[in-house]
């Protein structure tokens, strides 16, 4: 048997070193590549959600029933499947003008041509029609030309507003007065009641006429197969001709979409519309969590580092803290549910809100419990980072402060804490980034995929911390699980991912800037 020559006999020292460096470089490069591709993928897929794709007139054979179809469509994304190029296509068809989806094999695609005459008409409920707008009708006005579209839109929206105004003010007022009369047991034929009823009828009639007017505004759209559909103009939210836009205009359009994405509620079961409630919920939850975790973590670290004498107990506490950082987050979720919600919340309900039982008041998942749970989850991060910061305060400065007659508390407050602030910042930011990205425990303690109300509204006491809330991470999770086959939904999911990524990036950059600023201030020379 011939022995393999050992490495050292083949390569000299210099070569061995460059081999080693080469291997390290290789792994670093792979790591870098992985990170870059994650970011690129999310930017491409998420960003694509906002980009107005050109509309095409397509002729293809539908795979499900071998029907030939002519329709306006937009390509969603392309990929290879079994060596064949395939793409997701959304199209409008006479049977369902509001957007069908299909996975299209290139072999099934008979013909495609750009259709600059076609527009994408987004509706209020999140659906969209691809088609060529023909005319827009209005009550008692024979002019149906499309040039009037903008004007007609404002008109119809004004009508809608007056309807809402009547409902909110006049009708609600009358309702309230009627209920008061009911409570005072005023007779059916009492004059007060009769005037009110008359008023009600009058306003109701007014609404009916207005509604009739509103519905007379219709937009007629021709689909690719020449069939014509009409939509109530009030339903139309936005209309673009992607084929007629220049690159810059498309960018403007994309930014408009981004604005909508950030400010609107999700529609169509989280596959369209915006993510505002989720963004808001995430920010609120993280904000509350920061308010809770920072004082706790910082005080605990100060106690451990500055006050506690270095005995066995402190060692045990330190080990416990660093182990807490490794506990799976779902465990915290279960803890939050069992301890905070059923335990603490349940007991508060039993003590103070007995009247409402068995309906829980506080003993139910909500944004406050979620923040509290996340605060406990991120506590170790803050403690460890703060301790690190405290340890970095030079002994000489502490001695200098004591030598000037400062008590321990004064030294901590005026010398140690400012100098440890970069460390504290680091901890808090890490905690924020972690809480913003966490999903599993949140679903147990208050995050839901759809919440009807924001935790803040105009109703007393304005901030409803007991309410459930929406969270970006949960939205993504929901998108990934329930819309697998829905390419559009997947894009929305990617857009949400992109947003989450941007939020975390921005937070981190802020943290780094703040930290370097503080560091410069406190650690110069």
């Amino acid at each position: 048997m011939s022995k393999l020559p050992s490495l050292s006999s083949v390569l000299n020292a210099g070569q061995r070193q460059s081999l080693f460096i080469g291997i390290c470089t290789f792994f670093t490069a792979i790591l870098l590549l992985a990170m870059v591709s994650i970011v690129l993928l999310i930017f491409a897929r998420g960003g694509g959600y906002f980009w107005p794709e050109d509309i095409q007139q397509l002729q293809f054979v539908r795979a499900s029933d071998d029907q030939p179809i002519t329709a306006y469509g937009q390509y969603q994304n392309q990929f290879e499947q079994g060596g064949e190029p395939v793409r997701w296509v959304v199209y409008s068809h006479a049977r369902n003008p509001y957007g069908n989806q299909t996975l299209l094999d290139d072999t099934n695609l008979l013909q495609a041509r750009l259709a600059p005459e076609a527009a994408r008409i987004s509706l209020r409920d999140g659906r969209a029609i691809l088609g060529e707008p023909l005319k827009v009708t209005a009550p008692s006005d024979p002019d149906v030309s499309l040039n009037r579209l903008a004007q007609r839109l404002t008109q119809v929206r004004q009508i809608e507003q007056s309807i809402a105004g009547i409902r909110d003010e006049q009708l609600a007022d009358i309702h309230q007065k009627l209920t008061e009369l009911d409570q005072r047991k005023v007779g059916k034929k009492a004059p007060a009641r009769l005037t009110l009823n008359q008023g009600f009828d009058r306003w109701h009639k007014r609404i009916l006429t207005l509604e009739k007017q509103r519905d007379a505004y219709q937009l007629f759209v021709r689909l690719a197969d020449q069939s014509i559909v009409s939509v109530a103009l009030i339903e139309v939210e936005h209309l673009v001709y992607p084929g007629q836009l220049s690159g810059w205009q498309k960018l403007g359009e994309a930014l408009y979409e981004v604005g909508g994405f950030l400010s609107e509620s999700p529609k169509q079961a989280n596959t369209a519309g915006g993510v505002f409630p989720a963004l808001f919920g995430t920010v609120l939850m993280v904000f509350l969590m920061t308010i809770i975790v920072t004082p706790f973590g910082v005080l605990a670290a100060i106690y451990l580092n500055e006050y506690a004498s270095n005995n066995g107990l402190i060692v045990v506490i330190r080990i416990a803290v660093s182990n807490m950082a490794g506990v799976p987050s779902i465990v915290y979720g279960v803890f939050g549910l069992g301890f905070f919600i059923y335990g603490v919340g349940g007991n508060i309900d039993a003590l103070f809100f007995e009247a409402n039982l068995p309906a829980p008041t506080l003993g139910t998942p909500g944004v406050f419990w979620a923040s509290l749970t996340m605060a406990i989850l991120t506590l170790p991060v803050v403690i460890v980072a703060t301790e690190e910061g405290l340890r970095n305060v030079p002994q000489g400065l502490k001695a200098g402060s004591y030598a000037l007659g400062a008590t321990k508390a004064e030294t901590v407050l005026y010398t140690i804490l400012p100098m440890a602030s970069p460390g504290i910042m680091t901890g808090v930011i890490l905690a924020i980034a972690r809480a913003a990205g966490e999903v599993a425990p949140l679903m147990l303690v208050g995050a839901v995929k759809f919440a009807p109300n924001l935790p803040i509204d105009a109703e007393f006491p304005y901030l409803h911390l007991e309410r459930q809330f929406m969270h970006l991470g949960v939205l993504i999770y929901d998108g990934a699980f329930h819309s697998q086959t829905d390419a559009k939904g997947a894009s929305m999911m990617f857009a949400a991912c992109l947003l989450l990524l941007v939020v975390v990036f921005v937070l981190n950059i802020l943290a780094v800037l703040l930290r370097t600023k503080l560091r410069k201030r406190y650690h110069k020379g």
Partner: protein
Amino acid sequence: MLTLFEREHLDVNNLAEADTAIRVEQLSLRFGSKPVLENISMSIPKHQITALIGQSGCGKSTLISSFNRLNDLHQHCHYSGKVIINGRDINSRKENVAQLRTQVGMVFQRPNPFPMSIFDNVSYGLRLQGINTRRQLDEAVEQALHDAALWNEVKDRLFEPANVLSGGQQQRLVIARALALQPEILLLDEPTSALDPLTTLFIEELMAGLKKRCSIVIVTHNMQQAARVSDYTAFLHQGRLIEYSDSDTLFTTPRKKQTEDYITGRYG
């Protein structure tokens, strides 16, 4: 003129109460089980400069830190014996340590300005004492900077960060910071060992001027410096006080063999 050379010396080993700034009685101190100071008794005269010399590690810093109870910062430090300042035993449990430290200022080996502006550094101690009015602070800060011979160099940049100053300036800033509290006693722990010779001279001159305002105890392992600036000198060796007398005597005619060996450079 003659008086310049024949200074009248007090007998530090038999000092009257009125002339005593600090009286140390049988002070012993250990860190954990390691004895650092053993049975030290000495009296430090008022308005004089007293130098502590000795090899590094012999306990000089520990000794002056027991004059303002700074050793309390170390967990395993235990001490017995008395340190009497103004008639009070500061080692008693009743002593208000923070208050004591405003009367006994201390300057360390390495300049340790706080990461704040020059002004805030000097006013740190005053603010802790509850002095907050702008005028009082302004006056006190200016006075302290004058006393530390730093005013002219920093008067135009009082609100710049202190750590842009040079090492010597920083050390004078730290002295000013201590002086702002108008301490009766100023402890200097090797204040010039991190500085260049010229700056060192500057600070030595400063000390001579400060003598009128407070009693000064300076730790140094530089014998020339001790001889130059101090009126009295104590020699410590392995935690014991070996010899203590006026500097002229100690450096010219030491009584103990160990002292002689040390000052002639036979060890250390």
